[in-house]
C-alpha cells in the first residue's frame, strides 16, 4: 500500500496530475475527517485538505523516505496545517445542531475505506481508556491545546499536565500493542 504511495509521489514529482488525483482520492476522506475532528468546521477542513495537496504539488521533494511512512507524514502535515489555520482564524464556530446539518455520518461499514482496519484498531484501543485518559488525549492531540489551557480545562496544576498526557499515551500504546499481538481486531 505504501509502495503505491511512493510510486504516486514520484510521479507527482514529475508533474503527473493523474498521480496527484489518485493520491487525493485515496486520502481525501481520511484527511477531511481528521481535519474535521480538529477544526469542527467544514470550510476549514476543506481548506486544510487543499493546503496539504498544494504543499505536495508545489514543493518538490517535500516528502522523503527518511521522514517515515508516507501516510504518517501526510497526517502530520495535515495536523500542523489544521493548527495553523485554527490559530489564524481564532474563531470557534457553529453549534452542534448546525454541525449536524452540515454533514452526514456514514455507516461504520463504509468507514474510512482502506483505512478501516487502522480505524478499528485505534478505536478498540481508545475504548479501553477511561474517560480522563480519553479527555486528556483529545484536548492535547485533536484540540492541540496549550499546556496552560489543558490545565485550566482539567483543573490541574500546570506542572502535572505533561505527566497526565504521558500517562494516558502510555496506556494507549499498551492497548495498541496488545491488540497488535493478538492479531488485531479483524473479523475471523
Amino acid at each position, binding site marked *: 500500500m505504501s509502495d503505491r504511495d511512493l510510486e504516486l509521489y514520484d510521479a507527482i514529482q514529475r508533474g503527473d496530475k493523474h498521480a496527484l488525483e489518485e493520491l*487525493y482520492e485515496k486520502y481525501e476522506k481520511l484527511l477531511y475527517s481528521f481535519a474535521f475532528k480538529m477544526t469542527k468546521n467544514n470550510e476549514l477542513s476543506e481548506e486544510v485538505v487543499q493546503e496539504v495537496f498544494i504543499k505536495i*504539488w508545489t514543493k518538490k521533494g517535500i516528502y522523503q523516505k527518511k521522514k517515515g511512512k508516507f501516510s504518517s507524514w501526510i497526517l502530520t502535515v495535515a495536523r500542523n496545517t489544521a493548527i495553523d489555520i485554527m490559530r489564524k482564524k481564532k474563531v470557534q464556530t457553529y453549534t452542534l445542531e448546525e454541525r449536524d446539518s452540515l*454533514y452526514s455520518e456514514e455507516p461504520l461499514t463504509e468507514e474510512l475505506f482502506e483505512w478501516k482496519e487502522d480505524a478499528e484498531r485505534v478505536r478498540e484501543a481508545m475504548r479501553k481508556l477511561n474517560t480522563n485518559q480519553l479527555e486528556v488525549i483529545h484536548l492535547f492531540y485533536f484540540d492541540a491545546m496549550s499546556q496552560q489551557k489543558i490545565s485550566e480545562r482539567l483543573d490541574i496544576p500546570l506542572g502535572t499536565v505533561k505527566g497526565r498526557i504521558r500517562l494516558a499515551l502510555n496506556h494507549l500504546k499498551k492497548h495498541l500493542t496488545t491488540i497488535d499481538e493478538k492479531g488485531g481486531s479483524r473479523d475471523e
Partner: protein
Amino acid sequence: MNNEKCNWLIDYFNGELSIKEKEEFEEHLKDCLECQQELAELNTLHEDLPFASEPVKPPEGMKDRVLGNVFANNETNSSNESETVEGKEEKEAERNVPFIHKNDSKRRVQKKQGSFYTIAAILFLSLVGNIYLLMEMNETADTPVEESENQTDQLIQSVALDATEVMDATGQASILENEEGRTLLVQADNLEEVSGEEAYQVWLLEDEQPYRAGTFVPSENGSGAVSFNLDSLEDVNWDTVAITLEPTPNSEVPQGDILLAAGL
C-alpha cells in the same frame, strides 16, 4: 528533567510557542536526549490517532474545487507570480509556525460558490483585522472565475442590534438568501473577552422560546461573527435575535443575560 525548557515540549508539539521560543526550544532539543525521545514518541501518534477520527463525508464538489485550486496554484507560480512566500513556506511546511499564505484569500474565494461565502470570509478576515487580505479578496472577487459560478445572494433584511446595560457591545444581524436557502449572519464588536469555556451564543426567539443559532468566541479585539443556516428553523416563527454570554458553548437554554438584541 534537567531544564525548564523540557516543559515546553507539549506547547512545541502543538505549535503554541512564539517564533523566538520555538527557536530556543529547538536549540535545547539538540542537547536534550529526553526531549528528543519524548518528541519522537509524540510523533509516532500520527501513525495511530488520526484514524480515530469519525468518518465525515467531504462536501459535494470538494475534489474538483481542491484539485482545481491545487493545479491553478502551480500555474500561477510558474508564470508571473512566483514571489515572496516560497522560502518561508519551505521552512514552515512541516512545523507549525503561525503563518498566513498571501494566496490563501484567493483560493478561498475561488473555491466558493457565491457572495455569501465571500461576505462570510470577509467577516472572518476582518476579525483578524487583516486589511491587506481583505483588499486582495475584493479584487479577486471580480475575477471571471468567481463570476462563472454566478450565484447571487439577496440581502433580505439587516438590522443593528441594540445593546443592553450588561455590556457596551455593538452588533448587526443580516439575513441573506440564495438558491440554497436563507442564512443569518450575526456580527458583533466591542465584546468582552471570554474566559474558560465561555462562548457567545446567538438565539432566535419565538415569543420567549429560544432556539440556538450559532456560537462564537470573539477575537482579541472583541469582534466576533457567526453564520447560521436558517433552513433548520424553517418551522419556527421567530421574531427576535439575541446574543448572550454562556458558560459553555453547549447551553440548550440561555443562562446568561441578553447582551444584544433586535426584532427582525
